[in-house]
């Protein structure tokens, strides 16, 4: 429970990627640790070889994917993530599904992540793909800036992405170009804002209990 100034960095990640900075131990910190500055370092791109079937998939994908489609490959905790440039996503998805040596038949889902401090690539759409033929899983990650939140829709290749992309649009405001009916799915149609973004407050009211007032969760002390 000590306060390590450096966050642990995955041994297998050769490069790292700073996606944010944290200050202090918690809000309103008077403990003397207030000057603490810690970078948020995500596991970064890894150069090949990756070992196991990772090399096979990477080789096959690099062969059929358009030039420059793969931005980087991250191996972390035994999972492989391909960062795909958004303009090439459709072709990559098509090849992943149809190519003999890849055969990613099933798209498990689309998940959005908002990194407000990752300049120029704040919005991430994360696709989990499963090849039942080869019994392998990979992850695709596609980024878009807040100022231009457009990512092509993979519904034509993976029809299951329909609701998943609607959900990601609803919660993050990522616009999936080419989606047949990109409307809100969880929130009411006239809801303002996109609730899962980090700049959207959680909300809540203070609760009084036996004379003490407990503030709503997003205004309580939070450890960074």
């Amino acid at each position, binding site marked *: 429970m000590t306060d390590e100034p450096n966050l642990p960095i995955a041994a297998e990640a050769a490069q790292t990627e700073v996606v944010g900075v*944290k200050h202090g131990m918690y809000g309103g910190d008077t403990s003397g640790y207030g000057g603490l500055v810690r970078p948020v370092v995500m596991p970064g791109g890894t150069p090949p070889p990756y070992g196991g079937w990772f090399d096979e998939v990477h080789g096959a994908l690099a062969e059929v994917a358009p030039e420059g489609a793969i931005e980087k490959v991250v191996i972390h905790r035994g999972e492989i*993530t391909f960062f795909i440039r958004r303009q090439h996503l459709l072709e990559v998805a098509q090849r992943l599904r149809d190519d003999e040596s890849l055969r990613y038949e099933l798209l*498990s*889902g689309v998940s959005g992540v908002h990194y407000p401090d990752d300049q120029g690539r704040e919005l991430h759409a*994360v696709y989990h793909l499963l090849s039942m033929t080869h019994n392998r*899983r990979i992850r695709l990650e596609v980024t878009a800036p807040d100022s231009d939140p457009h990512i092509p829709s993979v519904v034509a290749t993976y029809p*299951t992405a329909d609701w998943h992309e609607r959900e990601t649009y609803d919660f993050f405001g990522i616009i999936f170009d080419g989606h047949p009916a990109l409307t809100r799915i969880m*929130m009411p149609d006239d809801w303002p804002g996109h*609730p899962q973004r980090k700049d959207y407050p959680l909300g809540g009211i203070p609760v009084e209990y036996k004379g003490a007032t407990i503030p709503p969760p997003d205004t309580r002390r939070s450890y960074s």
Partner: protein
Amino acid sequence: MTTTQDPYAASNETSQGRVFTVTGQDWDSIAEGLADEGDDRVVVNMGPQHPSTHGVLRLILELEGESVTEARCGIGYLHTGIEKNMEFRTWTQGVTFCTRMDYLAPFHNELTYCLGVERLLDIEDQIPEKAQVMRVLLSELNRISSHLVCIATGGMEIGALTVMTIGFRERELTLDLFELITGLRMNHAFFRPGGVAQDLPPGALDQIRDYIALMKKRLPEYAAFCNANPIFRGRLDGVGYLDLAGCLALGITGPVLRSTGYPWDLRKSQPYSGYEDYEFDVVTWDTCDSYGRFRIRLEEMWQSLRIVEQAADRLAELEGAPVMIGDKKIAWPSQLAIGSDGMGNSLDHIRHIMGESMEALIHHFKLVTEGFRVPTGQAYVPVESPRGELGAHVVSDGGTRPFRAHFRDPSFTNLQATSVMSEGGMVADVIVAIASIDPVMGGVDR
């Protein structure tokens, strides 16, 4: 037509056709009103408060007479922002939230979340064996209770009320076991990153064995009631047809996928929590229809009983073994025990932290108030829930709270098949098709 205005509806204005607000007991006037229109095409809003839509699901059906020409789902009525809330609690507290999503399979929600967090912590191979076995035991009991609800409510929706009553009778017994082991019948928050919250209480194994023996007598009743019942088969055979290509395109997993004859079960193909050490079969059927899915669920309960039996035998040999990871920087510190005023922290533990060890007190305090830090990165470890692939995409920024926790819920994905399963069929078959998907709206909307 009724002239009653619905005070909760935003507006009755529409650019096409007339609007009927149905309030019950007014079918005659509606039929008359429809006859005046001279048009067979009707758009019906079914739900969100309808007893046979399996929860707060809204169906928008376009009908020609009694045939469905278009079916669409409206969801989101049970959205409670669980994923957003989890970003404001510690990693351990997250379990308390995610267990409430798919409320018929709470243990599977907890399991996939814990497996994801454990992968990020890189402690996957340090989870004590007893915790693994207890996770398997509870997951399989949960599969039985979930399938029982599916069969029971599915039966009720087609008028087989006895199937409903006996289904809930057996589910009750399963929930009694949950109550005995975790203290709660639903929303257990029992699996924690690093293990499980508590050891088995005394006498639990005997009760589990009694339960297995009883279920072996009771499960054949469902087969006797339904398997060859001509009315039951008449409602289910060939209804909700979806073949393998359709399932893969729509991302359908679980019993619906297995009803196409494809034996895909994550417990076998990508084992977790030691499933590779248990003997069980993956059940398939080859009819691609609701009846096949019913038979798969029935048989899967037998397979789950087999696993529960094996897990109980293992637990008998693991008496006194730890159920929480040994790493004191992660393991939840409190030890619960029954005292004179109910369950609470054990007096031994209080004595230890208050009187014997300053270090233990600091650990207890820091873990409970601040929580542990999880290294940066992301993980996705799916499990086979009763409804299919359930996975948690957990992202950490190195802090004490999840940066993002997204759940790929099988109900959400599978519900997309509603249109393709029910368009072209009868209205009554829509209910059967949806019941065969077995969506749980808590999981769909999260």
